[in-house]
């Protein structure tokens, strides 16, 4: 796969497109609120603030490895929260 196409291929997996279509913004906002504060802070600073993990570490006085761990755990928990909140078929 050409390197320029890697990003596009990775960013739009079908399963997530399905999830996205069925999610309400309220569910995502609630799921973000349900994350532990440290994980939410790391994710929001990176995503909306445009900070690298090293900058987040510096801003929050946290070791870089801890910030990376929070990003990992936060995104994993976000996925669990959102898939759990999906309306089940036939229900």
């Amino acid at each position: 796969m050409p390197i320029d196409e890697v990003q596009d291929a990775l960013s739009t997996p079908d399963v997530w497109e399905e999830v996205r279509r069925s999610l309400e913004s309220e569910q995502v906002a609630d799921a973000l609120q349900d994350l532990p504060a440290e994980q939410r802070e790391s994710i929001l600073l990176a995503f909306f603030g445009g900070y690298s993990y090293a900058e987040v570490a510096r801003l929050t006085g946290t070791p870089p490895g801890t910030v990376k761990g929070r990003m990992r755990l936060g995104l994993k928990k976000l996925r669990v929260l959102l898939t759990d909140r999906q309306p089940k078929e036939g229900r």
Partner: protein
Amino acid sequence: MNVLPFDPKVSHPLPTDDLEELAAVWALDAMPPGERAAYREHLVECSTCQALAGDFGGSADLIPLATQRVQPSANLKSRILALVASTRPAMVAPRPRPFAGFWQKRPWAAPALGLLAVTFLALTGILQAELRQRNSQVSEQEALLASISAGASVMNLSATGVAPGASGALVQPQAGNIAYLIVKDLGRLPSGQEYQVWAISSTGPTSAGTFAPSGKPQQILTLEADFRGADKVGVSIEPRGGSPAPSGPIVLFGPG
């Protein structure tokens, strides 16, 4: 120089916590440029990390949905999100985003750093000051986003003929005595003048504070004021220190 903890050319047979961390950081576009380039190179080789990056990327791509819950109208939502987004490199599609960091903004800084230790010390101070400023700005943005996602009310402010092209919005969270004023394209003022914010109700205008233009296209201001009883919001030009009642020209007013 490889900045990854492994050879980018290797292919990992199984996911690990460390590889998940890299994928999460990638998904949030939070890698420094050198590491991002190396990881991008690695993704071409490693199907395990491709799967991880796709999975974490799917989670990260849902985050912008959280900002789409602005009330009371879709029009206001679009307007305020456009205002807020204009200072963010990538709100909807976080990867790849233009690196908005210190070095890219100041390409002259690197050679200067190598030449003079004195310059290094000065730049360190600048960087620290900028980080403090950016930290403050992002904290406000984060609080603003939290307010929006928690169902804050939004009042849309329009420019008067005094400041054509300017715009603004006031975000009043449901709880607390803090509101956020976003102003865009407000011009500089002569020395001795400031902008003053007014909460206007049936009993008349009440000052919500003064501010000086930052010189940047957009400002997000935290106001220690309660606009829940206000019908309208105005911003006027007043003498430095503010006036007890609006006396200068109104530059922003709304909702219309």
